[in-house]
């Protein structure tokens, strides 16, 4: 135990003096989680994946604005904003805010919109009831103005325009029916007078029909949406929920580089040879070393969680949520990932013959495993073939387990397969490293 603690303390002391190693272990994942999350947040925003922020400018203050507000408020993921800095902005200020990317679009209802809509609806109703033969409409056009952030992508732009068209159509139908309801008694009366002549004079005038306009928004034909894949629908993570566990895992697995380096340097310096001649189990030395790096991994993990919880919200992203997962389950997943990383570090430190070999192969293997494991691009966004390949990556196991906990509300049972895989991976690495180590010593290669 004494030797175990002495080794762990010595390793931490060496790490403290290795500034480049500390940069790799702490600064790199911290910067990556910040940059990638903010970039992805922005990309998802331009694609409408994060919801739609609409700056709503109503200069008309009439029926159209009220109905648009009501309809948009009910739409999923739409946030309507009417004021900037506590007051309603003018059109130029609103457009500047959209151009800056503060909002994806601005909806502008010009003054006189409601009266124009009513006039046009009345004319349309008159024409429909053949009460006027005029086809030219002298009333001004009712134009709803939409201004998009230039970075908003085409698909999202079309979706928003389509949504607005549906809302406008609903308002139009409603207004036209209102006008029809008003004009219909007049039409009946004139039809009666025409058919009955003077006899119709004594007949009571019909009252306006009261249309229940609820039916205009009740679809007759429904559209069912489903995945072309036979897999069950999976809840997708947001940029924050994806990146915080992803880059903390990347940082954790990057521990293999300094860890392997530590084994290699000891071998090259001859320290390993000296230690092997001492009355201490080499297992205690390896365990002490692993304990030091595991401690570093826990600090890394905590640091990235704090960045997700505290720093990212300060930079405009949503805060990282741990979800409903039990803390012990999160700790178990993190522990198994850390165990996998340290196991791989021990293996790399045993296999690599020089620090150069380890510093080339280690990061490359981690970057490939991270790419396959959905660290850089979520697995669901990969082609099917790559999704199938991704199951071989330990980072994928760990990331899936974290997403299960943080995004899909999974419990211990749900993450046990991934935890088991990571433990098996760690055991396989340490077992292989032990065999290779014994073989190397037998061959006299110190």
């Amino acid at each position: 135990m004494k030797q175990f603690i002495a080794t762990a303390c010595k390793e931490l002391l060496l790490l403290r003096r290795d500034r480049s190693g500390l940069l790799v272990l702490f600064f790199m994942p911290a910067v990556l989680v910040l940059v990638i999350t903010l970039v992805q947040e922005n990309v998802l925003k331009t694609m409408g994946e994060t919801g739609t922020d609409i700056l709503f400018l109503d200069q008309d203050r009439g029926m159209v604005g009220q109905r648009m507000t009501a309809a948009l408020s009910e739409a999923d993921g739409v946030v309507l904003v009417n004021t900037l800095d506590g007051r309603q902005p003018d059109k130029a200020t609103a457009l500047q805010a959209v151009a800056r990317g503060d909002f994806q679009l601005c909806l502008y209802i010009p003054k006189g919109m409601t009266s124009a809509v009513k006039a046009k609806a009345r004319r349309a109703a008159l024409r429909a009831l053949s009460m006027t033969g005029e086809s030219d409409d002298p009333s001004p056009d009712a134009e709803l103005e939409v201004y998009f952030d230039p970075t908003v992508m085409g698909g999202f732009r079309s979706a928003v325009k389509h949504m607005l068209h549906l809302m406008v159509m609903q308002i139009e139908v409603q207004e036209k029916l209102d006008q029809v309801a008003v004009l219909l008694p007049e039409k009946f009366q004139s039809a009666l007078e025409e058919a009955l002549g003077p006899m119709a004079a004594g007949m009571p005038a019909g009252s306006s029909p009261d249309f229940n306009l609820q039916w205009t928004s009740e679809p007759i034909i429904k559209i069912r949406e489903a995945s072309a894949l036979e897999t069950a629908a999976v809840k997708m993570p947001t940029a924050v929920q994806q990146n915080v566990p992803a880059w903390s895992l990347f940082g954790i697995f990057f521990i293999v580089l300094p860890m392997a380096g530590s084994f290699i340097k000891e071998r090259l310096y001859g320290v390993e040879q000296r230690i092997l001649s001492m009355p201490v189990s080499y297992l205690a030395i390896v365990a002490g070393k692993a304990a030091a790096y595991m401690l570093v991994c826990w600090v890394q993990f905590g640091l990235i969680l704090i960045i997700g919880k505290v720093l990212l919200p300060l930079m405009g992203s949503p805060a990282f949520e741990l979800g409903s997962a039990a803390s012990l389950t999160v700790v178990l997943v993190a522990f198994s990932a850390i165990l996998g990383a340290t196991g791989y570090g021990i293996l790399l430190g045993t296999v690599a013959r020089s620090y150069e070999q380890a510093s080339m192969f280690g990061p490359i293997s981690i970057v490939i495993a991270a790419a396959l494991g959905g660290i850089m691009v979520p697995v669901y966004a990969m082609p099917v073939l790559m999704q199938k390949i991704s199951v071989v990556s330990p980072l994928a196991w760990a990331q899936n387990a974290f997403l299960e906990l943080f995004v899909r509300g999974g419990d211990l049972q749900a993450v046990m397969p991934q935890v088991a895989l990571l433990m098996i991976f760690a055991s396989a690495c340490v077992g292989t490293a032990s065999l290779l180590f014994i073989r190397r010593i037998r061959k006299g290669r110190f």
Partner: protein
Amino acid sequence: MVASSPFALEIDDLAKLYEGADQPALDGVSLRIRRGEIFGLLGPNGAGKTTAISILSTIMQPSSGRVAVCGIDSLKHPRQVRRRIGLVPQDIALYPELTAWENLAYLGRLQGLGGRHLKARIQNVLQAVGLEQSAHQKINTYSGGMKRRANLAAGMLHEPRVLFLDEPTIGIDAQSRQLIMEKLQAIKKSGATIIYTTHYMEEAQQLCDRLAIIDKGRILVLGTPAEVMAGHPHCDNLGELFLELTGRALRD
């Protein structure tokens, strides 16, 4: 074998054949080294010196043969043997980013030392090798000679009964070499046994009580420097004898 053996080291028919090798690295080496003796193991590159030191210091298992250190069978009880031996490898087997004190504190704890005793031992060995003033300097700031002396201090820290030194004076200045020679004599006086490999023949002739020249895994000659020279009167010095026995062909 018993622990009361008068020999620090008993080697019987020791052999080592590495996997895939045609020739054995050690081929039937038998040897007795008395307690308190300085024994020189000389040989060209690839002669089997480092293999012998590795087996004697329990790092490596021989293919066959028997080794006892201070009467304890090192193949059966390596942990017990390790408590009694010290190794000064050919490389500077220390962490360059740590100070001499930190290196010795760590290695001392691995040897089972601790507390005030460890502190006293560190001070003692650093003083012995003349590094007490630079104890808190990192090893990577040391000169070659200082590094060699720190390497020796690490081997002496736990007061081993048998000290193995693999070319401890290679590539250092005359002053550091002289100091190391003096320290080895002092260790011998304390009753410890030193097994020592070197390429410096005059150093071996000056320091060793007995020596063996080995090549291709076999002992070619064994005895005190005077006995060895007496057997080859046509050789003026140990260097000439060494070349005569091992040949003038270059070794890799």
